[in-house]
């Protein structure tokens, strides 16, 4: 494999991995606080359509990304009101969020189907971006790629090194103890859920502004659910999330390349690969029940109602 081709493959992998990584990082924060929000797919779709619409109308990708973050956060807030304040079943509420997101994004996106938009620009660093191989692989990406990797380091630092990270984890591990010590469990969970929604929104923005700069109904194609699987795969740890996202990005790119090279297998079977890989990986990682139990936030998905 020539160096140029390898660089192209790594770049394509980054493109496919970034939306998964952004959404999964957000969900790690949400789940670490003990909230299971299964509505990632819906929040990503809303993020994608809002980013596309806002960028088209304003002409600025920054406005688009910011709007997508706000829209994702708003969807997550809706989830939080139902699941945290009104104590609705979190699984059902997450599904509702996805169903609503699919319908609402299609409705908002109707006027934008088939309109073109320039791709999110690559940042180039004079000198470094022109280096062979290292240039395109490390210094030839758009801002959101760097943001997603920085978010991984930021999350690790936050969870492991800060007092607030410790409090967040305490809320997810034992809401009763955290409440007894005097931490505002519900408020912290609101914060974590809304943060997860904002990142899911940005993940959606990446799809409609960079991965394929266009809007199409249901364009996430299950990536929100794959991001949820990634969180389990990564056992709620930031750096494993990074590794997982790039492995899944690799699978996606591999099947696209095989399709492109006229590989003698019907394209539908190749398109199945990312979904089958997710199932396979989930089965392999979940097999070790003890490890999953040790790593899962103990209060994940459980409602908390302070004693009156």
């Amino acid at each position, binding site marked *: 494999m020539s160096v140029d081709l390898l660089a192209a493959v790594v770049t394509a992998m980054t493109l496919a991995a970034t939306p998964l990584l952004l959404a999964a990082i957000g969900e790690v924060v949400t789940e670490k606080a003990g909230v299971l929000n299964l509505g990632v797919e819906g929040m990503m779709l809303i993020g994608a359509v809002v980013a596309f619409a806002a960028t088209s109308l304003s002409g600025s990708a920054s406005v688009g990304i910011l709007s997508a973050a706000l829209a994702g956060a708003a969807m997550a807030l809706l989830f939080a009101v139902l699941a945290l304040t009104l104590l*609705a079943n979190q699984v059902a509420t997450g599904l509702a969020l996805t169903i609503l997101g699919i319908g609402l994004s299609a409705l908002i996106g109707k006027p934008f189907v088939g309109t073109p938009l320039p791709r999110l620009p690559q940042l180039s660093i004079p000198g470094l971006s022109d280096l062979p191989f290292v240039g395109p692989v490390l210094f030839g990406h758009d801002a959101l790629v760097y943001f997603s990797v920085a978010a991984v380091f930021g999350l690790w630092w936050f969870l492991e090194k800060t007092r607030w990270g410790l409090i967040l984890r305490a809320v997810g591990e034992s809401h009763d103890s955290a409440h007894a010590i005097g931490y505002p469990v519900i408020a912290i969970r609101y914060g974590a859920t809304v943060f997860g929604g904002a990142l899911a929104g940005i993940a959606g923005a990446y799809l409609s502004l960079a991965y394929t700069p266009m809007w199409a109904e249901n364009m996430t194609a299950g990536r929100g659910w794959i991001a949820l699987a990634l969180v389990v795969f990564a056992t709620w740890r930031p750096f494993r999330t990074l590794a997982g996202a790039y492995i899944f990005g690799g699978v996606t790119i591999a099947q696209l390349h095989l399709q492109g090279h006229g590989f003698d297998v019907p394209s539908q079977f190749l398109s199945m690969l990312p979904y089958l890989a997710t199932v396979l990986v989930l*089965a392999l990682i979940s097999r070790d029940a003890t490890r999953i139990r040790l790593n899962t936030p103990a209060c994940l998905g459980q409602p908390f109602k302070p004693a009156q």
Partner: protein
Amino acid sequence: MLRLEARREPSQAMVFGAPLIAVGLTLLAGSLLFGALGHDPVTALRVFFVEPISTANGLAELCLKATPLALCAIGLAIGFRAGVWNIGAEGQLVVGAIAGGGVALLFPQGGSAGLVGLAALAGAAGGLAWAAIPAWLRTRFNANEILTSLMLTYVAGLLLQYLVIGPWKDPMGFNFPQSRTFHRDTMLPILLEGSRLNLGAPIALLAILAGWLLLSRSLLGFQVRVVGLAPAAGVYAGFAPKSIVWFTLLLSGALAGLAGAFEVVGPIGQLLPSISPGYGFTAIIVAFLGRLHPIGILIASLLVALTYLGGEAGQILLRLPIAATGVFQGLLLFFLLACDFLIRYRIRIGGRHREAAP
């Protein structure tokens, strides 16, 4: 000022009242949405919810659309009661359609009117087999059935696309991605002359009755409910949690598969790249709206079927995007989940707390 107050007992009235309030709120939000889209809300609501069922044929179409919803929802509800979250009914429905349609394609010349029964059985078996995968992964590898059943839905959709573009494509079909049309012997008999209402609807009704008997009159149904409400108690009582996972997933898979077969040997009459407007997902809403109870599901399936008909009417008469249907369905589930709060809490307006008074 509004105040929330915990009820001592869950309100029975609200168990039935919450879905009605949710429907009311959905209609209200819907009219605001129509207003925002520049339509007269009253006209839009009439087009959406009244006109589709103002004729006999409209009512027949309503029952036709309610059939797959009810079949999927009854199976899902039994699983949800046991805490088994099969959300891949759409995939099981698609595989059922492939299996049922495959049988129909085997007999292009027909032969006997009983062949449709064979197609329906094949459909149920296909859905059952597809649901067996998440059941196996959950019981053997502890893998979350929500994610695996959903991933398999995408796989099923791609499999159907492959078949109608590849080996099962109609050779006389001008290269369109579709199968041959099925012979009359392999299709469900029409019940009402001049409509599309077929034998599937009464079979769905039977499934609802069977679901009710299972849940309220059988030991298995009792086990399902106990495992869902208190898993530890279920284990203590000697109920095998793994068997419940297998039973609920296979049952809901078989019913979804049957629904898929009924669609292709019913109103569609051939295999197409897409054979369902998301019935398997919408059935989740139907199951919750019907309170996970068979009778409730019967009513809910008719109501949600109306959103499909209304969406089609709105698209034709008002040029509304078809996505309006999805928005309605999503809002309905949201309001329902919110209103369920009223079962355990009441809203008091003004005044101080009773206990606080001297």
